[in-house]
């Protein structure tokens, strides 16, 4: 494949879907609203009763989990937009043009990245208003951003699969519900030590816990242990599997 063509086409198509977001900023607001509501609920309702066993404030404790919930709900829009392109005939039009084949998907994936980053900034700003504080420096923030970007890319490529294969628009976006639920079965809101055996076993061996623990440690200025490598392995592993499945589904549909 011609690399210059790929980058040129991806840039044009990313510009197109970014324009969609600019025209319907509600997709960014709604992506941010649910996590913000959850954050208010957890901090001001449940938070007082939760003993995290750490010195940091509860708002700081639960923020990493809220960030992951934001991403999980944000990628549903990628599935939705892909579904619309597929059903509205835009895909057929692009596919019958002499453009780089994968640019059509990458345009949506990069748009998801940009949209999610904006939603995440909104959530972090609200958390700051609620008393979230961190001593994290520029490098720490870069590390957090790196983990978040990897996780967003992984979930976005995962969202591409239902976007391409779902039969209805509801089906295309419904896949994100279990993803939004995952942080609840993790160390995101309560320490896993309080959970009964099997739940705890699940919580400690699913991707969210290691990612949450890593981000939390970076924000708190704590020493990072194994969890960072586990988190990175989960993110990259998910990304590779989702990418392979998504591009496979794409080839089968539009070979």
């Amino acid at each position, binding site marked *: 494949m011609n690399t210059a063509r790929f980058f040129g086409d991806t840039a044009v198509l990313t510009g197109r879907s970014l324009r969609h977001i600019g025209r319907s900023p509600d997709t960014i607001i709604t992506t941010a609203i649910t996590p913000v509501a959850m954050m208010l609920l957890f901090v001001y309702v449940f938070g007082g009763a939760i003993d995290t066993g750490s010195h940091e404030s509860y708002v700081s404790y639960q923020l990493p989990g809220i960030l992951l919930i934001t991403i999980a709900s944000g990628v549903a829009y990628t599935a939705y937009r892909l579904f619309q392109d597929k059903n509205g005939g835009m895909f057929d039009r692009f596919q019958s043009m*002499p453009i780089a084949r994968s640019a059509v998907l990458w345009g949506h994936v990069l748009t998801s990245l940009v949209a999610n980053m904006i939603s995440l900034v909104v959530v972090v700003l609200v958390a700051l208003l609620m008393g979230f504080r961190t001593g994290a420096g520029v490098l720490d923030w870069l590390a957090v951003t790196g983990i978040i970007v990897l996780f967003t890319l992984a979930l976005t490529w995962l969202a591409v699969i239902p976007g391409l294969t779902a039969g209805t628009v509801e089906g295309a976006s419904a896949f994100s519900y279990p993803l939004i639920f995952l942080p609840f079965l993790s160390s995101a809101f309560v320490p896993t030590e309080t959970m009964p055996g099997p739940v705890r076993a699940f919580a400690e061996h699913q991707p969210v816990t290691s990612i949450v623990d890593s981000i939390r440690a970076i924000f708190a200025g704590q020493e990072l242990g194994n969890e960072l490598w586990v988190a990175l392995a989960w993110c990259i592993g998910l990304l590779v599997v989702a990418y392979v499945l998504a591009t496979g589904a794409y080839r089968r549909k539009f070979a």
Partner: protein
Amino acid sequence: MNPTPAIQVAGLTKSYGDVHVLRGVDLSVEKGSIFALLGSNGAGKTTTVKILTTLLTADDGSARVNGFDVRTQPHDVRSSISLTGQFAAVDEILTGRENLVLVARLLRQPNPGAIADELLERFSLTEAGGRRVATYSGGMRRRIDIAMSLIGSPSVIFLDEPTTGLDPEARIEVWQAVRDLAAGGTTVLLTTQYLEEAEQLADRIGILHEGRVIAEGTLADLKAMFPPAKQEYVEKQPSLEEIFLAITKTSAVTVKESR
């Protein structure tokens, strides 16, 4: 006759499981002509168009568009064609002008903005150009769709049921656009289930029935093929509709007999 046809199809077959959509389609379309592929729903029109525009691969048979093999030279085929699909493939959230600019940029045209403005004027959409396509009527949507297909001056244009779902006025607008195209030397292959549309527009007509082109020729050819009426006191010429129904009926009978 032109020695190298714009579209050359031989023995094209395509099945989905037990459903044999195409059972050996043969057709040839001369450069610069309008060819109408006529057939009822499920005859295989869209499948044929999708194979010719590289969106689907055929099970068997050969197809060349602008001299390029759709199977082995898909990129060359894509550079020679444009497709206007069955449902207007326009981005509703973008304005009409933005849709044109998008396609022009993807086709690496110099000065996409000027191309967009020129096409908007040609299709009488200059005023609507700054509005989102979601606000357009069915006819305007089709016109912007066809305008998008003209960018980069493709030598072959495929229009899959360009007027399905349009009111009569919009249909006439689209017909005029198609005539203008062919006048400019572009080869047009259009599919339709409307007999009048084929009669109005096409230089040659192919009747696709149950996955085969069972009759092909000019309107006069098809009329000549129609068995002479016995009750000769009826002065009316057979309409294309009557020809179509008669041909598809006799073919259905022969298929049954051969079983």
